[in-house]
């Protein structure tokens, strides 16, 4: 088991390294390199960056310097936001996204798992059909559609909910709903097919033959088995929530990291782009590794020695 954990983290670390390197070299494909002298950047900032990353030195040296600094969390100064370091920007924006993302992940699980189970148990009846339809629409509609349509209906047309920012709890409703839509639908479908699979298994028959009631056999025996595939989805779900946040934060004007990523692209703030990419990539890769490891703990069939 320990061997597996080690291997998994090594793979994750390797991938982070690869991503960071790719990021660096891609940014350097832009003529002049990432820390190019732009009119909008102050003299001091320019000088500081030059010194830190050795702009006159060969690319490899720059690369080494950058990677070493990055490993310490130092991504340099923002090119467009005067006086702020990239790290500062990240640490101020990330909690907002984290809160939003966290709520929507929890919500997706809380809604998706029961919904999928209900569909499976009522297979063939109208409840099942209804849930399938909703879930299929959920995975088909792109997030920006959900956001914009939701924004229009509830924010503009009906005027019930605020459309920008995150100041009151009411402000959370639309963004969370939009962000959680796809994962909830996906989990519902996943849970449904997993549950259907499990219900047809022989050990469910054994459970009933012992004299267990429908409820107990479902909650104890079926759920425990059916939920395993859903755990494996949590990893990709986190990645999705991350990318989904880009759209949601742009539309609802939320000061989070996803939105920051997009706007720094628009404004060509290279240092921020690089720093944010590496940070987000690391986050996602590490969380995936963690989920994989947790899964191995939970499913006794896959006990690796």
């Amino acid at each position, binding site marked *: 088991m320990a061997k597996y954990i080690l291997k998994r983290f090594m793979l994750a670390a390797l991938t982070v390294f690869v991503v960071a390197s790719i990021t660096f070299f891609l940014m350097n494909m832009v003529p002049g390199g990432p820390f190019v002298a732009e009119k909008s950047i102050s003299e001091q900032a320019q000088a500081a960056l030059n010194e830190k990353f050795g702009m006159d030195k060969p690319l490899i040296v720059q690369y080494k310097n950058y990677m070493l600094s990055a490993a310490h969390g130092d991504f340099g100064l923002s090119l467009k936001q005067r006086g702020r370091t990239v790290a500062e920007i990240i640490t101020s924006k990330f909690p907002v996204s984290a809160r939003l993302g966290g709520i929507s992940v929890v919500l997706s699980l809380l809604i998706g798992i029961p919904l999928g189970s209900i569909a499976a148990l009522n297979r063939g009846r109208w409840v099942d059909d209804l849930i399938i339809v909703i879930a299929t629409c959920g995975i088909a509609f792109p997030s920006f559609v959900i956001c914009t349509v939701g924004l229009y209906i509830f924010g503009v047309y009906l005027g019930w909910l605020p459309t920008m920012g995150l100041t009151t709890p009411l402000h959370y409703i639309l963004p969370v709903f939009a962000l959680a839509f796809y994962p909830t639908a996906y989990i519902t479908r996943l849970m449904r097919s997993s549950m259907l699979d499990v219900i047809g*298994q*022989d*050990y469910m*028959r*054994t*459970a*009933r*033959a*012992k*004299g*267990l*009631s*429908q409820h107990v056999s479902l909650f104890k*025996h079926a759920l*425990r*088995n059916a939920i395993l595939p859903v755990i494996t989805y949590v990893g990709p779900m986190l990645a999705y929530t991350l990318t989904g946040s880009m759209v949601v934060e742009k539309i609802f004007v939320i000061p989070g990291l996803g939105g920051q990523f997009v706007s720094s692209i628009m404004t060509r703030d290279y240092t921020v782009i690089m720093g944010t990419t590496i940070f987000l990539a690391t986050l996602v890769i590490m969380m995936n590794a963690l989920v994989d490891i947790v899964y191995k703990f939970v*499913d*006794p*069939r896959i*006990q690796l020695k």
Partner: protein
Amino acid sequence: MKEYLVDIRNERLSFFTPAGEVKALNDVSLHVREGEVLGIVGESGSGKSVTSYSLMGLTAHPGRLVGGDLYFNGHYINEMSEREMQKIRGNEVSIIFQDPMTSLNPVFTIGNQIREVILLHTNKTRKEANDRARELLQLVGINEPDKRLKQYPHELSGGMRQRVMIAIALACEPKLLIADEPTTALDVTIQAQILELMRDLKEKLGMSIILITHDLGVVAGMCDHIAVMYAGKVVEYGTTDEIFYQPSHEYTKGLLRSIPNLNEREHKRLVPIEGLPVDMLNPPAGCPFAPRCRSCMKICLSSMPNYTQVSDHHSSACWLLDKEKFERQAEGQA
């Protein structure tokens, strides 16, 4: 009625599928006394498992009892509620299934799964249940019971898993054990061990067994009575000796004929039963075995034969027997 532990009379059961009504059981009658072993023999689709499941109320979804009466241990199964059935399942009647690989829940320990049935039907504490579980594992011949209790199903071999299933089935000392093809999924050597185990347990605990199988060799050593089923009907019923040495129905004869003889010195062709199984969506009006029967007569195709009593405990549903009776009558009159 009271003399029998199990008394099934004229059971009819159908599955109402989207494709139509599949008449799985078409007038099935059988009975088992206390301490007896009944073997139910037949091909896949003959209805042998369905009959036993219906006794426990475990008929799978689109299936429904359409006619007949089911009595077990003084209960009238037809009118029992789901709650009442749950009380007797695992308790007065237990069942072990064909495939031990998939019959145990992979995410719970062996101990957990055995304790579960004990805690469900008795007032024992967890510790007492655990002790009992250990006892049961020893009873079924599993060594190092304490170690096994903590293990998961995938860590045990097929034979051991089946023993665990038996342990679970016996936990509450049921009066009837239904064994649905208990050895089909196992190696031949393990098969022998499991059957031996069941024989021992039957002696020790005095319980009745219904042994369902398609393998004649299995019933030969174990059963007191045998019911031969084909296409949802019991075509012949008798003691083991009578079935093996005086088979009356053409299907039974066909089954016995098809057993290859290891002692043959010459090379002989195998003798299968010709033809294909019956389409249960549209069962024929006459004897279901008719199209495959080498002695098929015109009446066999058009009408269902009645049961003829061949001896005290031996009956068979075949027009050939009626033919004999008819001919004797004709002779008598002539």
